């Protein structure tokens, strides 16, 4: 017979979309890690700015977007993940008509600040079902924030500058990592067990792998995304 805690956990998992991993976490087990590298077989194309044909002059140069950034995460999180309810804060800045960082990964309950560090107005908004919002136009030096309470992918845009876009990936657990410039990632503090590991990049289809995290060790998993 299932205990009330098990029933509650199953219900919570169903609500959040995450199911507990097949491996249960032994209390004496030491947590491990998953690390590796994500390679993009086809480099993402440069960020496209709509040709300013009707402009009087050359628009400001836009730095190359960080489109190579990928996110690696556990599709099925261990039970312990659901006990973490600590809210957090993160920042997605607006500089030189670009969102920095281009990809942000946060846990549910996180409040993301959107400061305007540019020289001009911006209007951050999202039409995503996960968290639709529109912060309106606000000037340099000001910041507005949004709290993300549901897991999912949030596509962020600027209503004034159509070439500005970014992603916020909201997870119901803390087992994710954003790759660095070399494509490396590391997810720490993973309880030993078998998991489905997913690598996501905006320009390519995400790819999943089965991974077994040994007791107190690091599992190495590399991805090569098409």
């Amino acid at each position, binding site marked *: 017979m299932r205990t009330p805690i098990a029933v509650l956990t199953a219900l919570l998992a169903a609500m959040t979309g995450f199911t507990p991993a097949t491996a249960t976490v032994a209390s004496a087990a030491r947590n491990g890690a998953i690390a590796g590298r994500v390679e993009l077989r086809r480099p993402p*194309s*440069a*960020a*496209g*700015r*709509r*040709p*300013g*044909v*009707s*402009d*009087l*002059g*050359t628009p400001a140069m836009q730095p190359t977007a960080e489109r190579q950034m990928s996110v690696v995460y556990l599709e099925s999180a261990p039970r312990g993940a659901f006990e973490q309810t600590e809210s957090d804060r993160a920042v997605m800045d607006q500089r030189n008509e670009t969102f920095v960082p281009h990809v942000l990964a946060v846990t549910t309950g996180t409040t993301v600040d959107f400061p305007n560090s540019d020289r*001009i*107005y911006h209007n951050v*908004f*999202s*039409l995503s079902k996960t968290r*639709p*919002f*529109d912060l*309106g*136009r*606000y*000037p*340099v030096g000001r910041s507005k924030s949004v709290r993300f309470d549901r897991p999912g992918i949030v*596509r962020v*845009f600027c*209503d004034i500058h*159509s070439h500005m*876009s970014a992603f916020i990936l909201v997870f119901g657990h803390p087992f994710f990592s954003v790759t660095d410039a070399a494509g490396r990632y590391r997810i720490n503090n993973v309880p030993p067990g078998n998991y489905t590991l997913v690598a996501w990049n905006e320009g390519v289809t995400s790819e999943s792998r089965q991974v077994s995290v040994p007791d107190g060790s690091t599992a190495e998993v590399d991805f090569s995304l098409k």
Partner: protein
Amino acid sequence: MGKHRILSPVRLLLLTLPLLCTAHAVAAQGLPAEPFVFGDGRVVVSGDVSMTISCAHAPDAAVCTKDTGFFNFSDYDDSTLRMLRAGLSASVRLGGKLTALGDLRLQNAHRPRPYGFYLRFRPFERRNFDIQGGRIPSTFGSFARRAYNADNPLIGYPLAYQYLTSLRDDALPRTVDDLFRMRGRGWLSSFPLGDQTPEAGMPLANAFRWDTGIQAHGAAGIVEAAASVTAGSLAHPIFHDNNGGKQLAARVSITPAAGLVAGVSASRAPYVTSGSAAAAGAAANDFVQTAFGADVEYSRAHYLLRFETLSVSYDLATIEPRLRALATMVEGRYKVTPRIHVAARLDHLGFNTISSPTRTDAWEAPVTRWEAGGGYALQRNVNLRLSMQHNTRDGGRVRRMTALSAQLLYWF
């Protein structure tokens, strides 16, 4: 039914249904949302498609019909409220300092037209100064340069940039009475001098074509300025010179605070062809269009306000005194939710009074228009808009017209 019957909801629904079906299909297809980029960013191609349908009602006319008063017709004989429009824009970087830009547009069943095609040269890497040559964007005012899809909160155009007055570049009135006869008939105007075939007249400033010439543009701090020399006129931009004259245009704008832009513009050019001027026994330089404009835009939080005014005068060697027109427009947009916006525009186009031996009147029929509506973003780049527009005119066969319009807009 009486004179002021409302639009039949069933008929309107039948008209809107195809648009809604297309909107759903477009939103579901996952069409491109960003420009196509080739050659490591050297070539960028973007596009937009808009499909507009409308149901107009004028007194003594059918309940749901086309714009019988021709209030919304453009110089390509199309109504802006019943139009399928597609455009492709491209920029090709030819080096560190040179870029080629082009804009191809297709309107209804017409052949595609090169709206703009020019070279942009940036001589100094660290200075915000450009020289553009070819078929270039308008120097004057602010509306003509705005991207229609993103920057027009409504469906219709401002009167100054679209409404056709009776004046033509290839036909001229001999007397003031010739002008009076054409009041409110700019969509099909005819005069005794020059080409006597009835044709569409000219708007005060043309938002549907760009002129050909050279333009310099610079910005420093809060000030931005541009000046150009082109072959046509503000009312009639052209590709090939047709009168030996040149349009001189300039614009200065300042951005004193974030979200506030104020600009002034001026333009002067002969606006008739050499042939029609000769038919009047004069030179093209005796027929000059002079325009002054002022525009202000202010935005903050979820609202946007715009004001623009154009004061235009026409010298006609055949008629005294000088003809004048004043267009004033104010519009606002408010974003209610991330997906929904509402907007409204109030627009007036007035003309000075002149006299013939038998009559004293404004040389063209004054027009007032209001338009109110809103939009729903199915996706960031797929918008469905609805608007209601009401026009009144002090002249012409149809003096009042109300139109309900729906538009589906897609851009990448």
